[in-house]
């Protein structure tokens, strides 16, 4: 995919707040291009995250999520140095995973 995800994971008490900025067009399938043809829907359909390799978060998205999607969630029991990996998969089957360390 275009650019790596920007992931920021910050310890806050006994949890870690994870903020992710993904790079993706998120086409709704509603737009038409210059020649009047509908641009097909192309969007992230699933997102998941792991904490030190253990799955902790899954989400399903529709085309209504904004372009270059932002995501924020809070992992319980995470501390500085833990690894958070975020994966997305889109409706074309493409996928991307990026990792960050809790600071």
């Amino acid at each position, binding site marked *: 995919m275009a650019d790596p995800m920007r992931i920021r994971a910050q310890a806050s008490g006994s949890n870690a707040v994870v903020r992710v900025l993904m790079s993706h067009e998120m086409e*709704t399938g509603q737009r038409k291009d210059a020649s009047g043809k509908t641009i097909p829907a192309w969007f992230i*359909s699933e997102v998941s995250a792991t904490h030190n390799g*253990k799955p*902790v*978060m899954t989400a399903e998205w*529709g*085309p*209504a999520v904004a372009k270059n999607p932002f995501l*924020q969630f809070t992992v*319980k029991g995470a501390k500085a140095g833990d690894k958070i990996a975020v994966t997305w998969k889109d409706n074309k089957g493409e996928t991307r995973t990026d990792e960050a360390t809790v600071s």
Partner: protein
Amino acid sequence: MHTRREILRHSAAVAGLLATAGLLPREAQAAWNQAAFEAKNIAEAAKALGASAPAESKDVTLTAPDIAENGAVVPFTIATTLPNVKFVALMIEKNPNVLAAKFDVTPAVEANFGTRAKMGQSSDVYAVAITNDGKALYAKKEVKVTLGGCGG
């Protein structure tokens, strides 16, 4: 990709990647809830997510701007303090596709998620929490949009 060995190694790597991405048939089918994401109104979306008619609840919160300057990027936070929640969903009533996002709630994360969504026009927005026993509870807020975000 000259030698057969290289091609085989590449295929194995791709297969491994596919497997870790969860593209095994059973998972792929269960993964994306097409019926829910194609629902055309709130009640239909809630039903497709396995819940009965939604009821308003103070234990579900939706944080959203009163007026969204740019309908293409409207920030939302959906959260709930209810126990036993299976997932929380963000629904935008007047969007062509009502269900924008659905977050599974596991013991490892707080039931508190933020994202940004597109709004085609001013509309009511719902944060819906669906419990393990199929009850749907929601919070709603009217968000005005000055410039619609679905293009076209």
